[in-house]
């Protein structure tokens, strides 16, 4: 467990640091290069800055559009909702926090799972919703990830899981820690059937999510500059009493230390994942034209 993200869900909904109106169009400023561009330019490019390539946060719906054939997900277990097993309150009751997260994110919990296709490959797909309480893993997230692997095992499908999470959900206490064991157990049963797991690490992936299934992919892929690590920067700085080096716990740092296989731009992610799965499953190369035209006769 690491830092609980200190931002409130409302802040997290903003993909780009500032939105401003200039005349009739809405303009937005890139987090990294300060380019100010029409908002549509960011949206059309899946929140990747057209000037410098900075990856801003992308909503679950846009991830579906980007990665899945026809943007279509046949969702599983969407009805599962969190409860409040510890009657937890920190001034604001956990049940109230759930209600406001559900309202602002228009989702029941911090993950969606289901069946989909990527460049024709059938996959079991999961994606964290960072906007829902920092993508933290409580009982529902743990349960849905376990079901994702179990259903994928039964249907003999690869699993592609997009992670963006601050770690375990503190408000569910020790039960959230137990989700780490539950999910990894389900993953190992999937692995036993020689079915691939592609772990996609987005910004940020830390704490209990990092320390359970995140690094156990057959292939681990990260987005450029994504923050990925076990302990939060503040905790480390307090412990060792020194400033952390530039680029610490970023995707490039992890690649250099041998913890991930590849860093991939969001815009190339779909073909990247589909090619990996085709290699692992020894399927033929995907050809765009064949997928859109009728199968050859004879």
């Amino acid at each position: 467990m690491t830092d609980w993200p200190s931002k409130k869900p409302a802040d997290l909904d903003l993909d780009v640091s500032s939105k401003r109106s200039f005349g009739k169009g809405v303009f937005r400023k890139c987090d990294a290069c300060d380019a100010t561009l029409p908002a549509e330019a960011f949206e059309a490019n899946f929140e990747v800055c057209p000037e410098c390539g900075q990856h801003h946060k992308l909503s679950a719906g846009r991830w579906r559009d980007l990665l899945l054939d026809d943007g279509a997900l046949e969702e599983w277990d969407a009805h599962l909702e969190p409860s409040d097993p510890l009657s937890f309150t920190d001034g604001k009751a956990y049940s109230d926090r759930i209600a406001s997260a559900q309202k602002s994110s228009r989702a029941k919990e911090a993950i969606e799972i289901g069946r989909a296709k990527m460049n024709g490959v059938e996959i079991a797909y999961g994606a964290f919703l960072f906007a829902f309480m920092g993508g933290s893993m409580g009982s529902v997230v743990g349960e849905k990830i376990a079901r994702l692997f179990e259903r994928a095992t039964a249907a003999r499908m690869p699993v592609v899981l997009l992670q963006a999470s601050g770690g375990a959900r503190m408000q569910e206490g020790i039960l959230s820690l137990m989700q780490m064991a539950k999910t990894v157990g389900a993953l190992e049963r999937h692995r036993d059937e020689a079915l691939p797991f592609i772990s996609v690490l987005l910004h940020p992936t830390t704490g209990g999510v990092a320390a359970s299934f995140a690094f156990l992919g057959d292939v681990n892929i990260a987005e450029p500059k994504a923050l990925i690590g076990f302990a939060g920067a503040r905790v480390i700085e307090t412990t060792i009493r020194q400033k952390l080096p530039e680029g610490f716990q970023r995707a490039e740092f992890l690649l250099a230390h041998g913890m991930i296989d590849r860093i991939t731009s969001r815009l190339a992610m779909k073909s990247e994942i589909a090619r990996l799965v085709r290699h692992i499953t020894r399927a033929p190369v995907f050809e765009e034209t064949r997928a859109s035209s009728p199968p050859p006769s004879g």
Partner: protein
Amino acid sequence: MAAYVLPFEKPVVELVTRVRELRALAETDPKFVGELRRLEEKAGRLARELFADLTPWQKVQLSRHPNRPYTLDYVERLFTDFQELHGDRSFGEDAAIIAGFARFRGESVLIVGQQKGRGAKENVKRNFGMPHPEGYRKAKRLYDMASRFGLPIVTFIDTPGAYPGIGAEERGQSEAIGACLASMARARVPIVATIIGEGGSGGALALGVANRVHVLEYGTYSVITPEGCASILWRDGSKADEAADRLKMTAPDLLRLNVVDRVLEEPAGGAHQDPDAAARAVESALADALGTLRRMGPGELADDRYKRFRKLGAYVA
């Protein structure tokens, strides 16, 4: 070892000390035996009364008590023929986790446990029981080996958490912990874990994916330290007592949430007042658990462990 007394322990410590003195007397002079029995009975009752109302935060302090028995104190009392094994085979040796073969009632087992140090010097060596990736990779290597050779795995959990540092991140603390969870999930042998002190988050769970999980009466198990929780929630680490209450991290809570299977009663005043008695409680629970698990086949054991964790959690379907 230097005596260290928490404020709320004082009355109990005084009683326990008197019992100890009288016991020494009774050993040489039988006329004290009757008085010893009476005082023991009284001390036990009083200690139980005084400790009945401990707050969660006081229990956290007991779980971290510097005089509390650590893993090697149990190893010495519960096992024979201990042979320690070292190293992760890729980077180094981590003394914050001890591991090795030993015999439990004659039968060979693998022991893995976090080890805190006594005093400043040993704590530097043991890193206050906070493992680096090397410690977890040593554990993982030996879990795999035990599973291969059919040796039951006995773990002792006692850590504030995995170490948060630069080297730990560079060498993949997350992956090392995740790999332990996977290895324990796959193991085809009985696994019994006992939380003897602090069960700090993922760094503890890396020794905790067991068929049976026991906790000593004043042991704790939590997703985050109360200090960490308080500093996140209220930006104030000094509200740790309040956080300890909210986190439901004490033995009775853990039992109620099915996170542990058994709470082991500690001697009057806590395990550190009578490590031999604490060890007897751990031993007898371990013998029960291993006895039951020994009757299961390798596949059954992995299934039993999966089912145990599969049902943990609370949600609305």
